[in-house]
């Protein structure tokens, strides 16, 4: 529960970054963590991505003057960091193919214990699995729009693309998800293909032809 409005959080940081940064982390932790978890598909990776996002943010904010701080569009700015960090981990992983199938198919999401309510439902579990099958250029806009709730303008700023493109990619991503949901095959049958290192070549299904 945020104690402060967005403007008050920025005010606090402009006034004293060290004192105000805790409120900033608290008010954006759900958005950043949800993005990190739904992009990476692993809690271990999400923990690291989310923490690293705020650490990078803090270091960047130290160079901001008060005026720039007060004008900050916090959510798209933070999520740009998260998305870029995640893309970097993907790239690193693809350069070391022997490790590719480990993080994304680990059992972190299925471990028992006090999981978030969302994961209790079998449907949510399925959807989490499908999201992981979306290619990067569809997964990011769908997560930002529908899991986190960013506006199309905010998504466009994260993806550095026109608003229309952001909208189209969200729509295509959602279509793709629906197609995956109605496709007969399961992740288990495709598990052996090294999909992450070469996602587009190894998936013969047509893309974006609609």
């Amino acid at each position, binding site marked *: 529960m945020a104690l402060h409005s967005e403007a008050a959080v920025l005010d606090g940081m402009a006034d004293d970054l060290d004192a105000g940064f805790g409120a900033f982390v608290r008010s954006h932790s759900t958005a950043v963590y949800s993005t990190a978890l739904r992009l990476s598909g692993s809690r271990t990776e999400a*923990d690291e991505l989310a*923490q690293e996002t705020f650490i990078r943010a803090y270091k960047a904010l130290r160079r901001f003057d008060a005026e720039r701080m007060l004008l900050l569009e916090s959510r798209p700015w933070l999520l740009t960091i998260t998305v870029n960090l995640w893309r970097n981990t993907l790239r690193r992983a693809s350069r070391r193919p022997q490790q590719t199938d480990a993080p994304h198919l680990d059992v972190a999401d299925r471990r028992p214990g006090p999981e978030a309510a969302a994961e209790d439902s079998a449907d*949510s579990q399925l959807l989490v699995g499908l999201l992981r099958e979306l290619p990067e250029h569809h997964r990011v806009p769908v997560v930002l729009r529908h899991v986190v709730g960013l506006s199309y303008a905010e998504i466009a700023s994260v993806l550095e693309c026109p608003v229309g493109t952001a909208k189209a990619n969200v729509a295509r991503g959602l279509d793709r998800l629906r197609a995956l*949901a109605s*496709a007969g095959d399961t992740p288990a049958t495709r598990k052996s293909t090294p999909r992450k290192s070469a996602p587009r070549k190894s998936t013969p299904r047509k893309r974006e032809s609609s």
Partner: protein
Amino acid sequence: MIADTASTRRLSLAVDAAALRRLRVDAPDGFVDTVMDSLGLHDADHLVTVHSPAGDLFVAFNDDGISAVMPAALFDGDPGQFAAHHRQETGRPLVAGIRPPAGLTAALRSGRATNLRYDLSGLTPFERAVLTKTLEIPSGEVRPYGWVAREIGRPKAVRAVGSALGRNPVPVLIPCHRVVRSDGQIGNYGLGVPMKRALLSAEGVDLERLERLADAGVRYVGSDTTGVFCVPSCVHARQIRAAHEVHFRTDAAALGAGYRPCTHCTPVAVRDAS
């Protein structure tokens, strides 16, 4: 087989905005602390100023509860001075809060602050036990240090109870002003004896009566109609008519005279009485 059921499941799966929205998850517990720790920062507490019978109070609080209370007058009414003091005491910076934590205003009005949440994380288990017990003393009543010591199961630690109360980070709310000397005298107070007297008077404690009884060596008051004895400030003791009021210097004398201890103010431990 397994693939069959899984694919049927998939076919019935709703892929829409609502389903995706349910994939939002909060960061794990302790996430903020982990981030702040790795940056070498301390999460800030929030500061509000509230009115009370003790004058304006500076109140510091965080997600765990209220962490510090001090009369504004001690810092010339300057929040900056209090913030510096707070940082020294807790290591945490203090930033302006927008509104007081839930229930604080009502608690100050009623004198019942038992339902507020407190951040007593910087204290020892013994200190926490003392303060938690003290919180049970009702507004308008007082209990001796020895009562607190006995109730927390450390009957010999009377002096330590006094020290723990002296370090109460949230005075006025956790009412250490309601703990008095075992001989019935008002005793010391971290914020000064005049403040202790003012707080008790504001709650309706008849200080003159308590001191008159203490001076006469009276520690317990009984009713010869009910056969019950109390500490003098107990709400039940105050209802005894003068004609029926009986005075005792010791609990043994009261018990010896066939009186039983009040269950509200528990002047002696229940097991001692039976």
